[in-house]
């Protein structure tokens, strides 16, 4: 997407501030992420990673500042159509099977059910044989895979993923990492909040947050990042 000759960033944050009562979760964050970037957000617990992602989805209200997704304010109809979000805890219906989740979310986004594509996605995430089962009866790892499938079944320009590797076995983690990298390689923007430092080797850019402030933004240089993380 572009406006004249200037490309519109996939995600643009200007002075983003978020307070929960007396607690300041984010303090005036400025950040621009271009289309096709694969960016990792790292930082200690409570540094503001999840808060930033949730603000970008529109789940949280900004205390101050501006946050745009593909040029549209976060949470607006256009931005909601552009952003796909994988929360840190899978949020799924108790009474829908995996396949029914995918069909429902596809239809919510104006897509007719495409069984072939759904089958491919489920096979990729190792859920093909569980398509008819209820995720409410799954282990944490299988629920996480379902959550990823739900995020990928719909169209999006920006993918926001919060702690995607929690609960996944090594094979699941590898599949997830490959999926994220392929998505970025296909020109879509991927932002991942994670504590998994091994993932950083696969990303193009690492943003380090500390106490709600951006303290480093650059290429994935492990030793330097570790210094910031203490």
């Amino acid at each position, binding site marked *: 997407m572009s406006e004249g000759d200037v490309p519109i960033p996939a995600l643009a944050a200007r002075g983003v501030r978020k307070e929960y009562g007396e607690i300041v979760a984010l303090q005036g964050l400025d950040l621009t992420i271009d289309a096709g970037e694969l960016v990792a957000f790292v930082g200690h617990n409570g540094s503001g990673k999840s808060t930033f992602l949730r603000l970008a989805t529109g789940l949280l*209200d900004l205390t101050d500042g501006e946050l745009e997704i593909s040029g549209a304010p976060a949470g607006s109809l256009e931005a909601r159509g552009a952003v796909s979000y994988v929360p840190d805890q899978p949020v799924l*219906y108790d009474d*829908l099977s995996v396949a029914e989740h995918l069909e*429902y979310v596809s239809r919510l986004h*104006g*897509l007719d059910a495409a069984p072939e594509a759904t089958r491919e996605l489920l096979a990729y995430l190792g859920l093909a044989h569980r398509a008819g089962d209820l995720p409410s009866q799954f282990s944490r790892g299988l629920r996480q895979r379902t959550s990823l499938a739900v995020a990928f079944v719909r169209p999006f320009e920006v993918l926001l993923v919060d702690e995607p590797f929690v609960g996944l076995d090594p094979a699941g983690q590898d599949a997830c990492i490959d999926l994220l990298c392929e998505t970025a390689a296909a020109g879509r923007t991927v932002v991942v909040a994670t504590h998994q430092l091994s993932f950083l080797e696969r990303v193009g850019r690492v943003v380090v947050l500390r106490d709600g402030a951006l303290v480093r933004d650059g290429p994935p240089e492990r030793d330097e990042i570790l210094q910031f993380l203490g």
Partner: protein
Amino acid sequence: MTAARTATYPAVRDLRRARRRRRVATLDWVDVLYRAYVTALLVAGALVGLVLATGGKPVSHGTVSDVRRYGPAWIGLVVAVAVGLGLRSGSRGGPLALEPADVTHVLLGPVDRARVLRGDALRQARGVALIGLLVGGTAGGLASRRLPGSLAAWLATGVLVGLVLAFATWGAALLASGLRVRSAVATAVGVVLVGWSVADVVARVTTSPASLVGEVALWPVHFRVVAVIGVLVAVALPVAGLLLVAGVSLEAMERRSGLVGQLRFAATVQDVRTIVVLHRQLAQEHARSDPWARLRARQAPGHACWRRGWAGIFRWPAARVTRLIVLVAAAGAAAALAGAGTVPMVAVAGIATFLAGLDAAEALAQEADHPDIVAGMPVDRGDIIVRHVAVPIAVMLIASLAGVAAAGLVTPSSHVVAVAAITAVPAATACVLGAAVAVVLGARRFGVLDMMFPEFAGIGLVLRTATPPAIAIAGFIPAVAAGQAAHGTDPAIAAAATLPVVAAVVLAAAGFVVWWARNRL
């Protein structure tokens, strides 16, 4: 991925229909019928109780005149309080409570939020209408027994006012939620509305829209067409709320969606403690990081529970302090009315102090929430629970000043104030003991109840639910005793006569709870 664009709203509609069909298909109809039977029994029992409590003889002309003069403002006060509570709920994201998955997948999707939320609101409105209909119809039917006017007229008026009250409360919440009214603003508007109604009560006039709704409630004895304005104002609230529903904050809705589900579950298993905790979370009631006062450091050990209790009390948010005072004041007013002859008001007084006691017994409840902490100490758990009772009793005794003042306002008499002051001791003790029993019973998931024959489980559940508030209500026996003794005797002697009753109530309640805590925990 091959895909063709289609309209998105039908997906929401189709899914909801499919889920409803699936729920109906998997229903256990025997269980549903049993629940309907139990509900019908309880409702019938409550109705009989209400009929007995209100009596059956028509009131005198003087009383009718009083009802006509003061009734609209008092009923208006109830309406104003309800609307104020609705506004507060709306400022926190109420009244809608979607599933967490609906918030994440539907409201974050590119769907028309107004359409989705309006559908949910209209479904919720059916329940609101049913409550208004039942409460209003019951009140109208009861009023017809004692006030002039036909049963049909009272029923029609009762239903109308019940619906207006229910929809005004719900609509105020929906409007505040849609407009994202801040909590402080909602409280301020609520205070203005209640203050306006209080002014009407004091001045014995009808000026506020809420008082006009009160006028409608008394149409069978005094018809004033101008009261329709109150109904129109009340109806405007839900209409505006439905129009602006899309403005709701997703942040508030997401927080609420998770908590309301837990709250409903806790209510179905009568887990009072969980209900209290979840209600505080819904209200975003957090302990103060900067306490009202700090305890001085002590070198010597001992009094751990006493000091821990006060440390928690000093971190109470202002909202909890206000709630406690309001509940105790309401209890004082109700107890004064009970002493004056309306004996059933003693239940209102007891339930109000029971709720206040649940707030005051927070340290004890925290102990019940975290049994592992005490399990790792060389102390008896029951002993710890008993020691935690002292601070909340002290708090309730301090708060009882508000109750004594309210009793004096409702029935201005030095003897009533004396009885209220004496009653404060057993009432404060009993409500804390009742709260302690409720909290500890809620924490004991696998107790005696689970060992019972299934046939007795229902009775056990009723006893478990009813015993704690019953203990709190027993704390007001002295007020009733004084009221009964005052008939035909010197009020001062009647007040003094309450002292042995006080001692008996305090000793009986405290003895029972201490025995129970030390031997059954």
